[in-house]
């Protein structure tokens, strides 16, 4: 049977505002599956031309797939969101790259012809499901020295990455974090972020956490506008005495969910759905688990090679800021300046937060907005590091690209 590989596009992406994990966080009394449901419903509301019956799959990622993140979230969230019973769903786990993997897995299936339109997203409620909840690592990891003990503690892997790149100092990391907060605040002031957020109603019954009753979350809770080098300088380095990684130059522990619509380009055009980005290539790569943050580099190498592109062809970068050092290592590797204007234009996870398995779609949603504004850019990429020593990269083409507007 002859097959035609089809172009795959990013139609739209939304997310809940991200919250701080823990008893005082805005989502402390909100279920993880409900966060996904709100995101899916907003996605459908924004795209009324899409008959929900036409959705072929709901792929939802979560790292800790138990409790309200268990029960085959893609399926159950679909039902809870009011999708027709005929729409199937499943769950995905690649830790931090969960939502990114939900996109690439379904995209591959779209290209293959198995699906036309899918919902792909992710959620992590780190307040209800702290990292490592219920894990049971095989003792051989340690006994056979398959991985270093630090591999299980992301902060330690970030310190290890500082070791690999001695020129990336704490000051450089802090400066990067300050810029991330500044860029995020500016993006908010310019309304770049809010347009892709779905407000979430939240209940609070614990008076110690603030006003009780129902409230509405309309903005990211973790943001710290006004962060300065001075305010970061004296933060503790919890992962290593006299280390470099602090709560200020890393993403926090967060709650949130994302959802995107991914479609075959011909189907999107036929249904009148927006085409915000065109998928060029994607790749995953493994590295030593104890320097997990290095992962984006080999993943990007592979994705570029597949696409026949060089790093210089990439006009916009959305790099997940799990740790400032991980972004800086990537930039250093490619010889890109720490403050290069192409990188994380709206700021990143250091400001917005990083609810593990949800973040991949946040990167894509932001890149899509930047593509709209910058038709002179042809290619962009989203990349992130992944626990246990992996990296994930997706390269996208700007459908609004207009050669006259730029140099590519």
């Amino acid at each position, binding site marked *: 049977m002859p097959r035609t590989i089809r172009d795959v596009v990013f139609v739209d992406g939304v997310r809940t505002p991200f919250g701080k994990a823990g008893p005082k966080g805005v989502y402390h009394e909100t279920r993880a599956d409900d966060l996904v449901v709100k995101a899916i*419903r907003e996605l459908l509301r924004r795209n009324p031309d899409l008959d929900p019956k036409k959705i072929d799959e709901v792929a939802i990622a979560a790292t800790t797939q138990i409790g309200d993140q268990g029960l085959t979230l893609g399926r159950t969230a679909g039902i809870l969101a009011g999708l027709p019973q005929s729409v199937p769903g499943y769950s995905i786990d690649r830790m931090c790259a969960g939502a990114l993997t939900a996109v690439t897995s379904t995209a591959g299936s779209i290209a293959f012809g198995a699906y036309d339109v899918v919902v792909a997203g992710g959620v992590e409620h780190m307040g209800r499901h702290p990292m490592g909840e219920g894990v049971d690592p095989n003792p051989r990891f340690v006994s056979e020295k398959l991985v270093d003990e630090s591999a299980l503690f992301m902060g330690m892997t970030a310190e290890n990455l500082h070791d690999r790149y001695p020129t990336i100092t704490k000051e450089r990391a802090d400066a990067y974090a300050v810029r991330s907060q500044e860029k995020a605040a500016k993006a908010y002031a310019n309304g770049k972020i809010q347009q892709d957020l779905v407000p979430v109603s939240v209940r609070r019954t614990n008076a110690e956490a603030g006003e009780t009753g*129902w409230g509405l979350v309309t903005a990211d809770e973790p943001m710290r506008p006004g962060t300065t080098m001075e305010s970061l300088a004296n933060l503790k380095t919890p992962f290593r005495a006299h280390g470099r990684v602090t709560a200020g130059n890393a993403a926090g522990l967060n709650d949130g969910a994302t959802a995107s619509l991914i479609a075959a380009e011909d189907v999107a055009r036929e249904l009148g759905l927006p085409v915000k980005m065109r998928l060029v290539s994607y790749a995953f790569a493994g590295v030593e688990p104890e320097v997990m943050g290095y992962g984006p580099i080999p993943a990007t190498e592979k994705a570029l090679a597949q696409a026949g592109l060089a790093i210089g062809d990439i006009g916009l970068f959305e790099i997940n800021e799990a740790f400032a050092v991980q972004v800086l290592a990537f930039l250093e590797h490619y010889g890109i300046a720490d403050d290069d204007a192409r990188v994380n234009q709206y700021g990143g996870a250091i400001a917005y937060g990083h609810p593990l398995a949800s973040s991949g779609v946040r990167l894509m949603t932001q890149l899509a907005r930047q593509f709209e504004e910058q038709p002179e850019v042809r290619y962009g990429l989203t990349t992130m590091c992944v626990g246990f020593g992996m990296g994930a990269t997706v390269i996208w083409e700007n459908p609004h690209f207009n050669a006259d507007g730029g140099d590519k």
Partner: protein
Amino acid sequence: MSSTTELLKGAAELFPGEVVTQAHVRHLDLPFGAGRFALITLDNGLDHTKPTTFGPQSLANLNAAIDQVEKEAADGAVTGVGITGKPFIFAVGADLKGVELLGRHEDALAIGKGGHDVFRRLSGLAVPTFAYYNGAAMGGGVEVGLHCTYRTVSKALPAFSLPEVFLGLVPGWGGCVLLPNLIGADRAVSVIIENSLNQNRQLKGKQVFELGIADALFEGADFLEQSLIWTANVLKGSVTPQRAEIDRGDAWDQAVARGKAVADSKVHGAAPAAYRALDIIAAAKDGDLSAGFDAEDQALADLIMGGELRSGIYAFNLVQKRAKRPAGAPDKSLARPVTKVGVVGAGLMASQLALLFLRRLEVPVVLTDIDQERVDKGVGYVHAEIEKLLGKGRINQDKANRLKGLVSGVLDKAEGFADADFIIEAVFEEIGVKQQVFAEVEAVAPAHAILATNTSSLSVTEMASKLKNPERVVGFHFFNPVAILPLLEIVRGEQTDDASLATAFGVAKKLKKTAVLVKDAPAFVVNRILTRFMGEIQNVIDEGTPVEVAERAVEPLGLPMSPLVLLELVGPAIGLHVSETLNRAFPERFTVSENLAAVVKAGKRGFYVYDSGAPVLDPEVAALLKQGDTVLTEEQVRDRVLDAVAQEIGLMLDEGVVAEAQDIDLCLITGAGWPFHLGGITPYLDREGVSQRVNGKPFLERGVASVPA
């Protein structure tokens, strides 16, 4: 506001056991830069099985919350104020326990006024107010929202009503006045009068929107978010809620007249609440809210101090609480599982029982009868009923297949009942026949199987007496129509053991019936009282009182139908049969009417002809009647009938037929449809002094179904 505070403080002291609702105020930023918003959440701190209610302290809490938001609104600190509920519940109105405790008119007035004073502040803030009906909303819960400028409702809202008239009150915290002014009198009459008097029918979210009570409807999954987004749009002017013009002309008066007709057909003027509500609705035509609210306060206080409401609350508690925990039922852990049911007989009653067991228990049900034709007819009936359910969409094809596959009919009891756990007989009402049937069943059924009888008047003990294992025989007396009337009289024979009884109660619960434990006494509860009641009507007619006088005499009770219409429904022959049974048992009190016997003998199935639409005494029946020459007035008839009923109930309680008078009332409400405003019957007999006159004491202690001392 201090007067309201004082008022509520005084009221709160009368109700120390209130489950207090908090009114949390939380601030949020509306989308689209629509500003800072204060959202009040009503929450009693318990889960959704304990719905939020309003007692005096709860009202005081809401009042304090409104103090806060009123100031913020005046200061320009918020652009709007909203009110919503905890998950699944908005608020279900006044706390009835608190209402029961009120013993003085002025205290009742204070509760009405207190609610008004607090709620109406929501319409007087410097900013618009919004109610978000997120879940169940009843009575005062509905009303607090009516005082707001705008309302949204969730599609997932399962129950929305103004049930006050059903209980014996009026919607007295603004409902009678605000609702007709919002949606017009006719729709308001439907909600306040018609739904209430139709067994407290509930509206769903979609209907609340379609009636115009809510300005917007949103799905449950993100109801509050969408409500707040809508709020932002309203505040910014990008959405303008559209409301239908209200007809304040003749349509208003016609609506009130329609309400009166509905009330007459349901309570026959016997309970005041609906009429008081209609008076207020009628007066609300001029849109004068303050005058209307005052009228509500007065009506509320009058009704709270009246017997009908106390009876209504008593009846409500019987069917809501006592019905779920039958008095005298053995520990349910003793119950044996029932995985297969046998039905002896395949006639209409037996087939109806088979259908009920099938639908509720979803276990194999086997019918037997004396020939194949009857068996086939019985199974055919069940199949046809399943098809009807399928056709109406009440069950799907898979369920229909399952149910049809579960029902079967056989001639051979051994084949049918060898592995049955519960076997019920519905054969001819004759003790010898029933003993024979049970003997045959016992020979083939497992030793643990319950043998149940649907007898309406025979002795369960006698029926069991010739069996090897009489301890497993239980009376299981349904009321026609079986699918509709909730009552199930469970009769304990002299030898019935606890395990069998517990199993019977377990089955009753699965059948969703209101089970009442009854001693093995002639005609049990409902038939005995109804027969005594009818017998006395029959007596006065036989003695010479005209039929229409006798019929009219009991109209003030507001029974669902007149005595002779009821006798038509039951069937004169069956009525005669029961009266004969009771006459044998208690010849000094139960008579057998020769006129009734003549009607039955003549083959008449009723007393009235309906050619003109209204019932007219059938001339052929009239010709059969042989009456004496003692003509009583309506009042005399009523006294005789009520005296007889009071005497009979007194004797039944002395005999221990049921545990308490409450069970008599529960039986009459759920088995005979006797109205809430009578509280069944004993609260009414107490209230009217009949109990005292006949038995020298009331049935119920003061405060149980009456204004407390």
